[in-house]
């Protein structure tokens, strides 16, 4: 957990709500972007209706709300490389990874090769990942 004087903890941001029905998704994204400046070990989870946050082709014109979904594709630039999608949540909603944005990051340790940020995990596997965290923020 210690890296010199700097404490590095495992922070998890868990997104469980659909993007526009409530403000949780937008404000969770705001936390994640600020948190990136703190050099912590960050992972994101999208589960339950939260999987809708990453849907491709979002269009909010008719509801007068800002479409913030393009921001997710910038997460790699914020050094956020671990994004977990719960498999059962997708299946229960008739969705697959093809319906979601393809999120990548550039690996500085591998000549900036583009790599997948998204990890599809089962509910059981997700429980293990949650168990490894120091701080879990649930939105």
């Amino acid at each position: 957990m210690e890296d010199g004087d700097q404490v590095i903890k495992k922070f998890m941001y868990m997104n469980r709500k659909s993007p526009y029905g409530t403000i949780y998704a937008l404000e969770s994204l705001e936390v994640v972007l600020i948190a990136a400046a703190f050099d912590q070990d960050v992972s994101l989870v999208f589960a339950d209706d939260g999987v809708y946050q990453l849907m491709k082709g979002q269009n909010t014109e008719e509801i007068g709300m800002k479409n913030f979904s393009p921001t997710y594709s910038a997460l790699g630039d914020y050094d956020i490389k671990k994004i977990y999608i719960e498999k059962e949540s997708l299946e229960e909603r008739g969705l697959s990874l093809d319906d979601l944005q393809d999120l990548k990051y550039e690996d500085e340790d591998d000549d900036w090769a583009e790599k997948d940020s998204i990890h599809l995990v089962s509910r059981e596997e997700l429980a293990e990942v949650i168990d490894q965290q120091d701080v879990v923020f649930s939105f």
Partner: protein
Amino acid sequence: MKFGILVNEGPYTHQASDSAFEFAKSAIEKGHEVFRVFFYHDGVNNGTSLAVPPQDDRHIPNRWSELAKDHSVDLVLCVAAAQRRGMLDEDEAKRNGKTSNNVAEGFRISGLGQLIEAGIQADRMVVFGD
């Protein structure tokens, strides 16, 4: 143990704020430290100085203010969430050309960095929300 608390829901509408308060109070009574409560989403409304609940009900913002005063708990309202919802302290009101402010005693407005910092410094971070 050193606790940080995140409150994500507003007063009265949702039990989260009551649960967070009871948790904080009990933890302190048991000898633990609650060094910061961060209010986010509608949770920022816990910090209003303008709430006038019926006299036979609990006064949620006052209850937080008293906890802060008695036990030096740092009550922080997220500035971005607060501005959206019309929660302004004197400085913010001035900066935004508003004629009044409504942040109750013991609360202060600051950035989301204070939440991350609480997560780093706390032994346990406890989230109360929906």
